[in-house]
């Protein structure tokens, strides 16, 4: 028995040294490392797969870490242990560029890849919603203008859609949406809520006179149960909507696209969220998606330039490309061409470009 125990120890030590030692000593990298947003992830992975199959390089490893986590990893430094590319569902922030610069990541190439439509949808078992952005604002803001018409805000009194707009159904307001940590939520607030608030002239006036209060009025989402923070798993939201026809949900267009037989997108200001409507800009709620390249790694880690070329080719991000099949809304032709040219030159991002 004693002997067996000793042998077990020997085996453990063997594995410790055998497995851990090469890992610590040296590991060359022959594949791309990509991190970042879970929204860009479904698109980046398609490109990576195509790239891996056609180019002869290894398929890049893509992690879904969220935009913030992606930037943290990306900006941690230059070198094989750090990722080469980070995906983001928002632009990099000046503070993040500072972090990058402090760690020696000075040259970053920004690539805008297209747009992601944000939709409000409900189950097909319920009547479709026809909304304006003002309706959505009134339904979801914490403070709304006094329904009596006075120029002051009151805590949101609306319980059903009908109370907001008589044309809407009398069902309870119940919207499942992303949590405040999410870029989708951020974009929704900016594109819908702010816009809806600005439809009141006196609030719009506030924007100039008292910006802080304007933002407090326009950007705060109610917390009394009508807006349910439902996590980042959009499929789960879709399935919850199917199980509960009275609720509506906020998520990315690709999930609506894939589940058109189960859910329907709300018509916003008389435009349905279709691929074409988002692409030509007539559907008002969409946001750009990006990825960022660490220029110092280009030519050092195999395949970066080729991967980027694949991503920025027409067969990928063009209107008929395979990314469009997956629900990515392409940029207009001119912008796309310009972007492809900039990327091919590896044009670095200047900090001034970020406002």
């Amino acid at each position, binding site marked *: 028995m*004693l*002997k067996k125990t000793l042998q077990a120890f*020997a085996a453990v*030590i063997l594995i*410790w*040294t*055998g497995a851990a*030692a090469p890992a*610590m*000593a*040296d590991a060359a*990298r*022959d594949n791309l490392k990509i991190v970042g*947003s*879970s929204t860009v992830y479904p698109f980046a992975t398609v490109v990576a797969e195509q790239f891996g199959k056609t180019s002869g390089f290894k398929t890049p490893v893509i992690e879904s*870490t969220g*935009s*913030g*986590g992606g*930037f*943290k990893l990306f900006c941690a*430094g*230059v*070198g094989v242990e750090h990722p080469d590319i980070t995906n*983001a*569902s*928002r632009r990099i*922030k000046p*503070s*993040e560029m500072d972090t990058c610069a402090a*760690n*020696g990541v000075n040259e970053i190439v920004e690539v805008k890849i297209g747009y992601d439509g944000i939709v409000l949808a409900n189950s097909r078992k319920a009547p479709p919603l026809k909304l304006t952005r003002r309706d959505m604002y009134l339904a979801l803001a914490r403070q709304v203008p006094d329904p009596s018409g006075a120029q002051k805000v009151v805590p949101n009194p609306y319980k059903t859609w009908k109370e907001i707009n008589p044309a809407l159904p009398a069902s309870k307001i119940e919207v499942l949406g992303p*949590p*405040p*940590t999410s*870029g*989708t939520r*951020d974009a929704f607030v900016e594109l819908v809520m702010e816009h809806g608030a600005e439809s009141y002239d006196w609030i719009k006036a506030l924007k100039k006179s008292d910006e802080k209060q304007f*933002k*407090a009025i326009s*950007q*705060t*989402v109610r*917390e009394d*149960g009508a807006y*349910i*923070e*439902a*996590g*980042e*798993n959009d499929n*789960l939201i879709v*399935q*919850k909507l199917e*199980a509960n026809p009275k*609720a509506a949900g906020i998520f990315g267009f690709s999930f609506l696209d894939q589940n058109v037989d189960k859910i329907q997108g709300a018509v916003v200001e008389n435009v349905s969220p279709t691929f074409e409507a988002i692409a030509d800009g007539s559907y008002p709620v969409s946001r750009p998606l990006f990825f960022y390249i660490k220029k*110092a790694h280009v*030519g*050092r*880690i195999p395949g970066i330039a080729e991967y980027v070329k694949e991503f920025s080719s027409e067969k990928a991000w063009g209107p008929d490309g395979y990314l469009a099949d997956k629900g990515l809304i392409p940029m207009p032709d001119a912008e796309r061409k310009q972007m492809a040219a900039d990327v091919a030159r590896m044009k670095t991002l200047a900090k001034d470009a970020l406002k």
Partner: protein
Amino acid sequence: MMLLTLLLLMTLAAYYLGLRRAVTVAGGPTSVRVLHSRPAYYGMWTAIWCGLPALIIFAAWQMLEGRMLTHLVVAQLPPEMQSLSAARLSLIVNDIRNIIYGNIPVGQVSPAVQAAAELYLRLQAISRIALAAAVLASALAGLGAAYGRIHIRLRARNQVERLVLWLLGACSTIAIFTTIGIVLSVLYEALRFFKSVPLTDFLFGLQWSPQMAIRSDQVGSSGAFGAVPVLAGTLLVSGIAMLVAVPIGLLAAIYMSEYAGKRLRSVVKPLMEILAGIPTVVYGFFAALTVAPLIRSSGHAIGLDVSSESALAAGLVMGIMIIPFVSSLSDDMINAVPQSLRDGAYGLGATHSETIRQVVLPAALPGIVGGVLLAVSRAIGETMIVVMAAGLTANLTLNPLKTVTTVTVQIVTLLVGDQEFDSPKTLAAFALGLLLFVITLGLNIIALKVVRKYREQYE
């Protein structure tokens, strides 16, 4: 790998040499009784002397080799390359390694890099040979020295046992290191969080609403970081889970160990263990898509206002998941109660169930409490089920039909979000982790005291 196999063989050889030597020293197999220890211990003693120092040399060499070689190679690079920043240099080193491993060379390979790669390979070959020589020399030296010192008075067993004891003790400190590691990796970020949010607000605040702005030019709403509702939600959900798991698990354990026949037991116990092994992701989907709508619609049927992400759904499913934890550990504890106690109770005329309730259970109680505490810990720390089924809205409520949120849900959502990584929102995750850690630590200290006080040993 070759070297390690060789070393292993040598160690085995050392074992038999030591053993044979001991027998010889004692004067043949019939008179091994004159030895201080049994012959096998001399074998092990020799084997340890042969293998252990060599293994330490090997491990140290492996750890340092890469760095040493890289250092040497870098020193040979042209000066203009050496003057690059450390980060750039690491990319050049990556180039060199890519060439060494025969990967696709990227871009133009400069002659300096090519030369460096060749140098690296040469040095590596030298290093391998030197390593082999050092390891084998050490093994042989150890073997020889040990072999020569074998003597009938040599206290081989005591020495071997001391080493084993030392190893066992070393293993037990891993828990301490893990704890230190966790505290260190959480504390720093948590402290940064407490710089922007006062500790008292965090601990006693009754509102949790991390709606701080994602961008600096935005205004979030309240941005309240009061942990009380989050903690209350955690306790509510795990409380429900324990209400499900403890009775079912305990009764199942009792039935299995006291009533069930061997056949039933051998079928049911593994099945229950499968229940514990189903990935929590799957439970999460089950809770969110099957149980929650079910509870919601049945609640509506009897006129109750049930949230679509009620604490009840998450708690119920979590309870199901925890049943096998409770049952498996209680089962072992009940089995450990000596049969004589049961026989005594039967002899006094107690029925089977009376024996169980009044004799077996009290005897097994400290162990069962330990198992239940383990299950409680599991419930508090469970992440995926609540992430999918429990929602994110922090209500301070005891109503199981409302939506609550838990500490783990908040940690996950805060960490994988899109916001800036050093904003209080992300840092709050670390503070919550620390809080959870401290609370469970407190609970465990109490539990340890209780269990120790009432623990009994029979026979």
